[in-house]
């Protein structure tokens, strides 16, 4: 019965992760802790593995659609991977309750960021097209039936924020997509679909780096991980196939609602 439940949870979070550009770890970790009574460290390790699976399942689809800016991803990941590895080491030595409260607080802050963006009268972001750099790219948007060109800006600030996301990923078992997507979209002025696709590519590497310390300390549960991974892989493919049909504003509202509920639950679990 537990096996079937884990598969279902994996499928749902995989679909959600592909839709929102998050790895699903921010959903899986609290579910494993709250409903399956997993120790926080094992839940974090399992969360990281499912994030890698979400990324692996979605990358082939997104990358061929032109929704992954590979050069920008490599640039941002140079610091993010190191931060994730460090976060994984620190997370292993941190008290479970502290991790749970930190998880709740960080997720709530991110949800508020998305609520603020959703309440703005206009969600239109002007993309930088006048200049061309090493990181310039384009993709064919099926909604507008047009080739969208863009040049990412403020990459150094984005890299610093991405490093923070990597640290949070290694420590808390979240992919860091919850931080990377708004940063790439709002700060670097990259179209939301590319921001989600690039984030999905990056979180795989971030989570893989973050999971290494947990493997070293023997905190992983391979059988649980692989059961969830199976659900996540099929869920991600389902989510990715519906990817371009969802409007940007609805994405943000859905994202914020899910995160607020999870943040409240984890905070409550931490202080209880």
């Amino acid at each position, binding site marked *: 019965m537990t096996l079937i439940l884990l598969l279902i949870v994996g499928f749902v979070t995989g679909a959600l992760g592909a839709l929102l550009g998050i790895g699903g770890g921010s959903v899986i970790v609290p579910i494993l802790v709250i409903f399956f009574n997993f120790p926080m460290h094992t839940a974090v390790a399992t969360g990281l593995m499912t994030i890698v*699976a979400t990324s692996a399942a979605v990358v082939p689809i997104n990358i061929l659609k032109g929704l992954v800016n590979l050069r920008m991803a490599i640039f941002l990941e140079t610091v993010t991977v190191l931060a994730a590895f460090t976060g994984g080491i620190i997370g292993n030595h941190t008290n479970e309750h502290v991790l749970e409260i930190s998880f709740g607080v960080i997720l709530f802050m991110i949800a508020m960021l998305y609520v603020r963006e959703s309440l703005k009268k206009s969600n239109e972001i002007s993309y930088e097209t006048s200049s061309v750099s090493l990181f310039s790219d384009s993709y064919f948007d099926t909604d507008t039936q047009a080739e969208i060109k863009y040049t990412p800006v403020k990459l150094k600030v984005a890299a610093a924020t991405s490093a923070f996301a990597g640290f949070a990923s290694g420590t808390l078992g979240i992919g860091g997509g919850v931080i990377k997507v708004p940063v790439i979209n709002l700060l670097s002025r990259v179209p939301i679909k590319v921001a989600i696709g690039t984030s999905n590519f990056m979180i795989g590497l971030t989570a893989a780096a973050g999971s290494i310390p947990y493997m070293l300390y023997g905190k992983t549960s391979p059988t649980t991980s*692989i*059961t969830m991974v199976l659900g996540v892989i099929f869920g991600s493919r389902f989510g990715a196939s519906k990817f371009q049909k969802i409007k940007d504003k609805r994405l943000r509202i859905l994202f914020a609602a899910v995160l607020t509920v999870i943040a409240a639950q984890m905070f409550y679990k931490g202080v209880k």
Partner: protein
Amino acid sequence: MIDRPLKEKIAKLYSAATKISIVLAVISIILSVAMQTLHSALGKADYYLSYTAVLILAATPFIGITLAVFHYITEKNRKMLLFSVLIMIILVAGIFFKI
């Protein structure tokens, strides 16, 4: 879209890794269920299969990024290459010395 050939290579790599992981995961789950119900003496076969699948998945993004780095070497983008090599060295050293 720039770097189309590289992106196609990475897509193939990720697809292959995902397929192998799916097969290993299914076999592992079947073995796990069979061992519970039949009290089979297959040892820790399901555990090792799961672990192999997990390791394949974890290695995939690193191989993907290495592919990309080698691709960019041809464009003589040394900064990107040096950063990536540095990260690899630190990660391997971390595993080796069990930080």
